[in-house]
């Protein structure tokens, strides 16, 4: 007998007490919890996102769509970045005002190559105001998961208000489980040493979020 059959057999014998007419999934699970916490205007939801991102030590900027290129150029200059990683589908206009060398995200570029890059600029799939979270789904303007992980500086552009939702339930509805997702709330952090929070162990130590719109 295979282990598969053995385990499934054990499970079935263990559940001999469960009646045939045990309630189905829809009836068994109460969903009395809230779809979002509190009621806010669109502008207040965006403000809450900014507040919660900052609370988790992300650096938050806000600008109008026509200012984005200059803001990005300034942030890369302040960081003294010599090279910036660019996902294949990133809007070219975003980097129009900077002359920092572009490094394309190619499938064949190894982890060591990514390690030599200073900064990465991406868009996002959705942002969650209540938790201060940005979610990347590997779309063309976000690139593979590794590009936002290995470089030490990540700039993420969120289009407001259309990419912002209030809550975790609302975010899950918008996301495709078939894609690899990365939920990011503030930069990498650890509290493993006497519970003192330290930013950055393995992921980018600096996360900058630009809310555009």
């Amino acid at each position, binding site marked *: 007998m295979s*282990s598969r059959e*053995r*385990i*499934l057999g*054990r*499970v*079935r*014998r*263990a*559940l001999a007490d*469960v009646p045939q007419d045990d*309630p189905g*999934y829809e009836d*068994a*699970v*109460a*969903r*009395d*919890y*809230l779809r979002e*916490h509190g009621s806010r205007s669109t502008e207040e939801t965006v403000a809450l996102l900014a507040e*919660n991102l900052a609370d988790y030590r992300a650096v938050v900027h806000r600008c109008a769509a026509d200012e984005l290129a200059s803001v990005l150029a300034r942030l890369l200059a302040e960081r003294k970045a010599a090279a910036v990683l660019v996902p294949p589908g990133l809007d070219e206009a975003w980097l129009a005002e900077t002359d920092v060398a572009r490094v394309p995200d190619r499938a064949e570029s190894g*982890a060591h190559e990514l*390690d030599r890059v200073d900064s990465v600029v991406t868009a996002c799939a959705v942002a*969650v105001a*209540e*938790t*201060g979270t940005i979610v990347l789904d*590997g779309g063309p303007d976000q690139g*593979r*998961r*590794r590009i936002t*992980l290995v470089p030490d500086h990540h700039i993420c552009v969120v289009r407001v208000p259309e990419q912002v939702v209030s809550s*975790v*339930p609302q975010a*899950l509805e918008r996301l495709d*489980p*078939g*894609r*690899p*997702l*990365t*939920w*990011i*709330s503030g*930069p*990498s952090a*650890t*509290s*493993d*040493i*006497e*519970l*003192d929070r*330290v930013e*950055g*162990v*393995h*992921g*980018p130590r600096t996360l900058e979020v630009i809310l555009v719109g």
Partner: protein
Amino acid sequence: MSGTFVGMPAFPKAAHEAVGNQTLRANLRHATHTIRAKRANAVAEVSDWAELREAGKRIKDHTLRHLDRYLVQLEESVTAAGGIVHWAADADEANRIVAGLVKETGESEVVKVKSMATQEIGLNEALEAEGIRAYETDLAELIVQLGKDRPSHILVPAIHRNRGEIREIFAREMSEWGRPAPEGLTDTPAELADAARLHLREKFLRAKVGVSGANFMVAETGTLVVVESEGNGRMCLTLPETLISVVGIEKIVPTWRDLEVFLQTLPRSSTAERMNPYTSTWTGTTDGDGPRTFHLVLLDNGRTDTLADEVGRQALRCIRCSACLNVCPVYERAGGHAYGSVYPGPIGAILSPQLRGTGSEIDASLPYASSLCGACYEVCPVAIDIPEVLVHLRERVVQGGPVTREGNKVVLKPAKGHGAERAAMRAARWAFSRPGALRAGQRLASRTRRLHPRTLPGPGKAWSASRDLPALPAEPFRDWWQRTNGGTGDEGTAK
């Protein structure tokens, strides 16, 4: 479970020694009180906590009650997404599968993201026996691994170490495992974290095989979820060419939507955050992004035996948040090592004796590692009634009875060492059913009360070692009642 803990003394002895360690007690007190207070604030932020908790409980209960169906569904959806599913009945089989998969890649080292399941089966030791080196990459796990130590907390495995000890471990051991610690390393957390970053980065960048667990598996979509803070999880899940995930069969949720409950309750209950810094989800493999090969090893190792116990099965709802550890007065003083298992604290006291059976001395003692104060049940985000299961397991240890071990029904003998307790209970039953004898006994006890010892002799000694014997009144209540007519007589009238 892991051989690491073979020969562990029973809980009372281990706890007694730990309580004498002043540094440990101070570290633990600071840590548990800090997390406890933060968690209460994080939970108070959401007005629907009670409803989220109830939903989480019901989702998990429903899944467990139909686990066979959801396991088959999960297998189908993971396979359809390009993953390969393996089934492991016990620790040995899981270790064999993982070692075999690593050997197939031709590699002799793996990077690991912290996982309770792989600790439970002793995977690192099993891989080492096959010539494969496993690098723990979570900062706390790294401290534990370099210190040749054992984890003592589910969430903060190195909670028992302070910064001075960590600096010393890094300076001494890092060179044995790879990049040495920087010269002149101080004990500030930022510098220590930086040393870990440099030490581990060289391993991440060359790693070809990653090993992980998972916090959740979605039956409907075949999606796996890992929740973390540091980014070492993302490194292990995305940089290697091969990813092997070892996950307990109880970690299933039926639908994608169910994650909306647990992604709200888990971070707030564990690290007391609105959301943990990183959550990764993956469904099979994705072309050009992440590992090309994905293996899922579904682990039983005592879970089906636990499932067979109608009272005890609720322990399988556990989402490993560790909130129960941080509120437990026993854990706070005894620390995690005293529990002799990778699952310490209240949840460990009910999970370990069910996964492993109560055959060993340490497992038979774990249901007693509690004051039954109920704080663990109050904080549990999936409402596991830990005190109820503790009492149930105590009854099993003392009385024996039918249990399931490795899928077979067996009848457990009463544990040794509880003979005096059973004799006392039998005597009590006899006396309570004979009013005359009870009255005579009580009178005798009252009249001789000045002669009573402060501790019990013989087999009762262990009981009175940690408790004061109750003081006896000068007159039994029954005599007083008869003499005063329940307080309405001449004497002893209530004023």
